[in-house]
């Protein structure tokens, strides 16, 4: 029990690591709670990347890691030229607006509490926690580095040695602090990160929209992810981390924050978190950056600088990981599930029906169908709605092609993975329904 509390308490270090960056005057307009969540995300990305650099250099992990990653956070301030604060939040509505905001907050709270109750009741624990996330984190904490002997050991190929390192690094960091890896506490990352996503998302959207609209959009995203997570057993898996980084990264690019260097670099750091959390985070990042540069040309100027701010954190983070794998002869790039560009189209109908069955089993597909219905009924306007919709389409295509690459019948694989892998798609569709009107900048651009 004590190890579990210590492990969870170690997460308090993450906002401290990211605080030097979020302490930049550009972020001053955000409230303390919102800044703490964003600093936690940045802290997670930087701490994990520093742990990977340490492993690459052959150094054992120790307390100095925290200082080194906080120093990186401080150094990142130099990349932000402007000291102008991000645009102020819109005025809150009165009367009915406040009631609607309160309803949205209550619904969000119910979803987070349901996720917490499901996790504590052992309803939503992921088998993958026991199969690979936990064993790797436990061993890395014991070895105080990314243990190549363990990753190369015979009969342990199922550990997916090439999976990006953020989740195992963060889990291992807590295990070093706690003295052992607490399995039960690890499952609580699901409600914890769902709550952090809710706070971060509503804070980001408040920079662009009145409180009722920001709260309602956040509620739809969180309620969809809550039900999907409970039903598809994501507690202790990487999905809560992936979704936290993906949703907040895209949300930043939907708001006026995307027009500043500070906002772009912050989004870039969150996108790096997504890429370092799961394999499918990398195509997600590429889709986001390409679509953002194409769709929001005024915010993307100057193009080279915008590209650098958005992509450099991912390149450094994933580049370090791939360099580690190659120099230790453990893995060379990400492993595919078949030959590249060889697709088994004869599996298509089976794959489509298997995906349908897998999604149906998750709350009768409601986490996926409700955001689509809301999107179709609200008919979002403006180019910026195309960003989440386009990324959702690109990610769906990527997942479909990945399943089509499998040389064997992929239906069993789909049955245990599709509801989780498609959860970012539903979150993006829910987020798109937020873009019900054009921004001021879009009107000016036209």
């Amino acid at each position, binding site marked *: 029990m004590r190890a579990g509390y210590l492990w969870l308490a170690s997460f308090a270090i993450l906002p401290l690591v990211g605080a030097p960056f979020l302490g930049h005057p550009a972020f001053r307009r955000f409230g303390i709670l919102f800044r703490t969540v964003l600093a936690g995300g940045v802290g997670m990305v930087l701490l994990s990347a520093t742990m990977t650099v340490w492993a690459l250099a052959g150094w054992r992990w120790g307390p100095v890691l925290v200082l080194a990653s906080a120093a990186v956070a401080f150094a990142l301030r130099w990349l932000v030229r402007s000291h102008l604060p991000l645009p102020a939040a819109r005025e809150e509505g009165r009367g009915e607006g406040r009631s*609607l905001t309160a*309803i*949205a907050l209550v*619904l*969000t709270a*119910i*979803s987070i509490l*349901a*996720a917490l*109750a*499901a996790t504590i*009741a*052992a*309803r*939503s*624990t992921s*088998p993958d*926690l*026991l*199969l690979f996330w*936990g*064993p790797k984190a*436990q*061993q890395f904490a*014991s070895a105080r580095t990314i243990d190549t002997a363990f990753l190369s050991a015979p*009969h*342990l190929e199922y550990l997916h040695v090439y999976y990006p390192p953020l989740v195992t690094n963060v889990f291992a960091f807590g295990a070093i602090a706690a003295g052992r890896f607490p*399995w*039960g506490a690890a*499952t609580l990352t699901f409600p914890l990160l769902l709550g952090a996503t809710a706070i971060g998302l509503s804070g980001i959207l408040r920079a662009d929209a009145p409180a*009722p*609209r920001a709260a*309602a*959009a956040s*509620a*739809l995203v*969180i*309620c*969809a992810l*809550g*039900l999907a997570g*409970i*039903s598809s*057993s994501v*507690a*202790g898996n990487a999905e809560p981390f992936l979704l936290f980084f993906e949703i907040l990264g895209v949300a930043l690019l939907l708001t006026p924050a995307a027009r500043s260097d500070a906002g772009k670099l912050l989004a870039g750091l969150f996108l790096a978190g997504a890429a370092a959390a799961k394999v499918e985070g990398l195509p997600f990042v590429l889709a986001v950056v390409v679509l953002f540069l194409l769709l929001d040309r005024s915010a993307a100027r100057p193009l080279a600088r915008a590209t650098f701010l958005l992509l450099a954190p991912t390149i450094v983070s994933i580049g370090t990981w791939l360099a580690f794998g190659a120099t230790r002869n453990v893995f060379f790039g990400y492993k595919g599930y078949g030959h590249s560009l060889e697709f088994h189209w004869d599996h298509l109908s089976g794959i489509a029906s298997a995906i349908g069955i897998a999604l149906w089993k998750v*709350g*009768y597909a*409601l*986490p996926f169908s*409700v*955001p689509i*219905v*809301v999107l179709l*009924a*609200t008919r979002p306007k403006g180019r910026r709605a195309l960003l989440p919709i386009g990324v959702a389409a690109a990610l769906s295509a990527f997942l479909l092609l990945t399943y089509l690459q499998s040389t064997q019948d992929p239906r069993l694989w789909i049955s245990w993975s599709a509801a989780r892998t498609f959860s970012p798609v539903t979150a993006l569709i829910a987020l798109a*329904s*937020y873009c*019900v*009107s054009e921004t001021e900048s879009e009107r000016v651009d036209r």
Partner: protein
Amino acid sequence: MRKPLLLSLAGSAILAGFSVAALPFSRGLFRVPRTPYDANEASFLAPAWILLQRAAEIVPRDVSVVVRGEPPDATNDSYLHRFAVGLLPGRKIVPAAVWNVPSPPEELREADYEIVVGKAIPPPASRLVLSIPEGSVWKRER
């Protein structure tokens, strides 16, 4: 602007309601589970979890351990090997099966300890060190 907002809230209410409905009320929501898998689709993991957690308290570090199920099943044994890697850190885990293919019996006999999930037939030349309803732990007599 009001319609999209109300639609989002209505959708959220449906999803939040189903989230609450998905909770395992029939098992007793406030009853502390014995394992992290008690109330989900992977509840078949629970006996192995309980046995391996108990075994971790008595099986010394740096010894070799084989974990298998009874009755024998290569698929089940492949997974038991993986669970043991997670729940018995610091021990050399000898797989009773890998990728659903049974390991040669002579490899299993070299393990210092044998953990059997389910009702065990006493392994030869072994001393019982733990027996619980979920299974048993045996130490090889050399």
